């Protein structure tokens, strides 16, 4: 589900009202500080590269930041801030088998990947890390690439909780 606008990202508000820091940015800095200072074992940073035997996209960036590359067409709460991760659902939810798709460029290798935004369903709004980006998003009459739709479909409940971003392929000629 890619629903809400960057308008809940307080950057916009900041630039308008002169407030110094946006909420999500503060959360982001807070987390990084936790990594550096606290040295927590559960830091969700990804390996920078993986072996060639099991090819996966090279990675850089923070998967709990709205700026992370996979989220180029997402709209919703990032599951990594909700007890899940960028590609898994929080406990007690159900992952929608039907999704919308984004085509996002990975800055680590310059390639474009097909990203499936599987929603996690059956609980109410997670409420954390609301993120909306609309690259390649199209209106609801083109549903496979529309993030205005609640994709909690084919699940036992259609209640929306958060969204994942799962790489399912590379895009040709992008």
């Amino acid at each position, binding site marked *: 589900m890619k629903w809400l606008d960057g308008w809940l990202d307080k950057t916009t508000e900041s630039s308008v009202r002169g407030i110094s820091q946006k909420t999500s940015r503060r959360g982001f800095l807070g987390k990084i500080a936790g990594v550096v200072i606290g040295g927590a074992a559960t830091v969700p940073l990804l390996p920078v590269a993986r072996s060639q035997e099991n090819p996966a996209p090279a990675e850089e960036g923070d998967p709990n930041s709205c700026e992370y590359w996979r989220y180029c067409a997402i709209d919703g709460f990032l599951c990594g801030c909700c007890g899940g991760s960028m590609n898994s659902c929080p406990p007690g939810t159900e992952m929608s088998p039907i999704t919308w798709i984004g085509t996002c460029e990975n800055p680590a290798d310059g390639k474009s990947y097909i990203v499936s935004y599987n929603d996690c369903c059956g609980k*109410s709004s997670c409420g954390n890390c609301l993120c909306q980006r609309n690259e390649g998003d199209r209106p609801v*009459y083109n549903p496979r690439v529309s993030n205005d739709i609640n994709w909690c479909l084919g699940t036992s409940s259609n209640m929306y909780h958060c969204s994942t971003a799962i790489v399912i392929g590379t895009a040709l000629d992008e």
Partner: protein
Amino acid sequence: MLRHNIMKRLIFSLVLVTSSAFGQLQPEPTGVIETLPEQWPAHWIIAHDAAFFHMSDGKFIVLDADSDDTNARFKGFFNGAFIPQLDQSKSRPEMYVVETFRSRGNRGERTDVVTIYDKRTLAPIDEVVLPPKRASQMPNHYLLQLVDNEKIALIYNFTPATSVSVVDIVNREFLNEIPIPGCSLVYPMAGRAFASLCTDGTMLSVQLDAEGEQASSSRTEVFFDANNDPVMEKAAIVDGIAYFPTFLGRVIPVDLNGSEPDVGDAWSLVGDEEGGWRPGGIQVTGTDSSGHFYVLMHPDGYEGSHKDPGTEVWVFDPETKRRVDRIALQMPAITMGMTRDDDPLLLVTNVNLEVDIYRVSSGEYLRTLDGIGAETVLMLHGSE
């Protein structure tokens, strides 16, 4: 029921106040419930708080947009569950809310209904149970429409198969479900008919018979490119003609007054204006009673900016295909609505999620309707 309760209440009070000097004072009446006029003043509006963080608890808040008194302007609200959709009747003092419930809140059996609200009481007076298929998505006027002189309500379904539920809203009866494969949403046509936008760049139209079954259908030619310069589904409809803005700032008129949609020639909203202006937002269009339409615009557009906040609202005369006014917003806005009177107000939700009011005739910012207990106002309706 109410009278009964008042009686119980009075008995309770008498027991309780036995020891007080009851005779010295006329007790104030209990059980008084406020009501609203059948015809609302033209500048009363309905703010749809979709409650994105608490979706089961959406609200339609009735506000007097002319008032600077925080409390006096708050007229009440009625609930709508899980990103509901609202439409108002012009011929009856009724409002219709399409909403979804589950037997255990966020889980359990699903029930979709159209709830009928009385404008005088803001209370539900009836409901029609629907197939549990209504589209769950961002609010959009074309999820729920009235046609055939407001005798028929049409509800868009997405499962992800697409269809339309046909409801006899006068007799409160579900009639039929019409599949519209490859197409989406409901745009009202003349008579007992609707149109839908299709992924292939066409528009489908469906004529219904007396029982709400499909009598006939037709397709337009391809008139837009759903990938490269798609039409926004958030059309402004003036005199039965739907004006669809495109991502890149054109507008395509489609006349819905005949038996089939009649696609007109596209023209540019931007003209020779520089700065990369494009339409964008949640609800990006509005109309007034004089035949103008309004588009929420932002500069420096790019791929993906089509839902970015707008900094201006541009006013167009569809007859002359020219911009006739531009209203600079004091704070960028994510969604817009209009009142329907001769001195219309422009209603927007700003990026702080407050409701700002502007006078169209002067372009003047009038006030911010804060203190309304809302979380995420995503749609703004003038009262009909």
